[in-house]
């Protein structure tokens, strides 16, 4: 009985809507996210015109993806932190400190124990970094949750403490070079997976998209919930797969630089053809890491009990506490997770730079927070998506890379980024007020 009235009501409602609204209702696309994609496209096309076609080239887009990876990884964690009405100002310093420790481990300590270029060096350094990051985050979280010090203060202290600690470890000396395998995490010619593997990743992603849509349809059928219309399912599948395969096609059309390709050809006894050798980069390993982190974090945020608690805690801390959630432990876990993500970001950026420096990750806390906020995470708590934050990181990086390409001076770059942040949040406020 109730079902009949629902469908009738829905039909009546959808009949009175215009086609655009009906389209969004049927496909259940987040219009806010779509707006961000629109903004990103405007930025890309704008810079492409201003730079005379330099922006939308496989080379630039590939570089853009690598440059985004580190902040994007941290932004996924920052979403959970901000959703629970906290803030983490220390991520840049944690990145610096953990990066420095991983650098010292693989460049100075592990070679003495294991020997130079030992195959286990990179994984030991990375594991140590992950543990250290998680421990630092857990320490921050414990002070916030159990000693009731505001997260702003705890992490502001952390910002200074861990930057100082970074300096202290080597008395300000830069540590280089990194282990050869570890370096792959930073991207570059060798740190990319090549054309074939990229297509395989793309194919797997498409299969995953189809499987997800079929599974959600089955689940809804099982309990007799309203379904998306078939055309909407096909549309979503087609758009998803097209985006994935398009991105793969782009990264696969960026060839290795001639010098490296020539060295490779010589080393492998391949005759050097007249037109040069076209070896595509494929997906860069740091980008792959960021995507995997994004998927895992989305899974944690939406499919696990922990994620549900994070959002409930952000929506109404008192209700969460009264519902019997161990809110303090949830806070500790969130910050530990954030610390671990800082360690991953530290691995990416030290590997990319092939060195660990004092200044590594400076100002990253601000870019990370900006990415999360531009990506729709509300500072009032309770709202935010992982995908939005990663997209936010891409928007920030696009602006910066674009301004470099166009030749805007450094001071103006910062001025523009700062203004964009404020305008983006203002637009979002307007959007939310209207959505109500």
């Amino acid at each position, binding site marked *: 009985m*109730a079902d009949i009235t*629902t469908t009738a*009501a829905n039909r009546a409602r959808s009949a009175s809507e215009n086609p655009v609204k009906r389209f969004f209702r049927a496909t259940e696309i987040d219009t806010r996210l779509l707006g961000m994609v629109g903004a990103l496209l405007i930025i890309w096309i704008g810079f492409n015109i201003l730079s005379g076609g330099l922006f939308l080239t496989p080379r630039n887009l590939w570089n853009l993806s690598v440059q985004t990876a580190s902040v994007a990884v941290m932004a996924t964690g920052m979403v959970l932190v901000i959703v629970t009405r906290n803030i983490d100002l220390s991520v840049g310093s944690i990145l610096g400190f953990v990066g420095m420790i991983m650098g010292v481990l693989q460049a100075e300590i592990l070679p003495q124990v294991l020997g130079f270029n030992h195959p286990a060096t990179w994984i030991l350094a990375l594991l140590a970094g992950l543990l250290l990051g998680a421990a630092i985050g857990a320490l921050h979280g414990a002070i916030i949750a159990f000693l009731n010090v505001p997260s702003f203060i705890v992490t502001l202290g952390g910002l200074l403490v861990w930057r100082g600690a970074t300096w202290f470890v080597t008395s300000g000396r830069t540590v280089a070079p990194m282990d050869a395998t570890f370096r792959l995490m930073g991207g570059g010619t060798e740190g990319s997976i090549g054309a074939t593997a990229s297509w395989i990743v793309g194919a797997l992603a498409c299969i995953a998209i189809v499987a997800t849509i079929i599974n959600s349809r089955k*689940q*809804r059928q*099982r*309990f007799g*919930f309203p379904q998306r219309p078939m055309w909407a399912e096909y549309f979503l599948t087609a758009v998803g797969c097209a985006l994935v395969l398009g991105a793969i096609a782009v990264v696969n059309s960026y060839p290795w630089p001639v010098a490296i390709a020539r060295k490779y050809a010589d080393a492998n006894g391949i005759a050097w053809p007249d037109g040069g050798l076209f070896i595509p980069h494929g997906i860069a390993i740091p980008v792959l890491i960021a995507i995997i982190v994004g998927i895992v974090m989305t*899974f944690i945020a*939406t*499919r*696990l*009990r922990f994620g*549900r608690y994070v*959002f*409930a*805690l*952000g*929506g*109404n801390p*008192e*209700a*969460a*506490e*009264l*519902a*019997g*959630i161990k809110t303090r432990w949830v806070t500790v876990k969130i910050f530990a997770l954030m610390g671990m993500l800082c360690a991953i970001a530290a691995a990416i950026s030290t590997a990319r730079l092939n060195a660990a420096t004092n200044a590594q990750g400076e100002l990253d806390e601000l870019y990370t927070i900006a990415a999360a906020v531009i990506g729709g995470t509300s500072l009032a708590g*309770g*709202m935010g998506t992982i995908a939005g934050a990663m997209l936010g990181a891409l928007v920030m990086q696009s602006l910066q890379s674009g301004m470099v390409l166009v030749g805007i001076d450094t001071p103006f770059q910062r001025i523009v980024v700062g203004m964009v942040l404020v305008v983006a949040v203002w637009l979002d406020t307007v959007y939310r007020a209207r959505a109500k």
Partner: protein
Amino acid sequence: MTDTRTPLVEMRNISISFGGIHAVDNASVDLYPGEVVALLGHNGAGKSTLIKILSGAYKRDSGDILINGEPADINNPRDAKKYGIETIYQTLAVADNVDAAANLYLGRELRTPWGTLDDVAMEAKTREVMGRLNPNFQRFKEPVKALSGGQRQSVAIARAILFNARILIMDEPTAALGPQETAQVGELIKQLKKEGIGIFLISHDIHDVFDLADRVSVMKNGQVVGHARTEDVTKDEVLGMIILGKVPEKAIPGPGAMQTT
């Protein structure tokens, strides 16, 4: 009292103080299966504090809680839930930003064999329970923020009865509601009573609860003024208990009763 059954809940000589102020002072109340007890008193009389001790939100300084005659160890909301005590708070205590199903199962989520949230199953059960409480409710996918006061109240009530509560605590259950919704809550209370659930109704407004309650317990300045069966006393007499602490003849005086002799 002629009742010789074991009380569902017995709170004996409960005291709690915050910074030297005795919010609840040597208070005792009890509740039998299928009974509705109204806990009355002015704002600040200590009734909400007393009941928050039962629901695990506060820890008592002294006194005993007995559930079915056996001492119960309640230190946090999780403990209380283990004893089948469910609370609907005055502030409604729902997480605004998630949907009805997420709120109903908050802290007790259903999970698939892989340990992930079983959202579909939770929504199905939510539709079933909400269908019983409020057949007009259709907005299952929207965050609770988007719902009306009555709808939010039904979400809060549904959460309490979803897990087979034996003891239900309702703190100002109708304060945020219109007349029609208030009547709905009244119906609901009668229905739950039939199922043998014991209910504490907390209110500062006697008119809200007098007709629903079997007994009243009145508190004043953190102390219990007295208990009475609603059939033995008039509303005016109960008002006298609330305002003056004056205990009528047929009521049983407590430690907070006005000393007349």
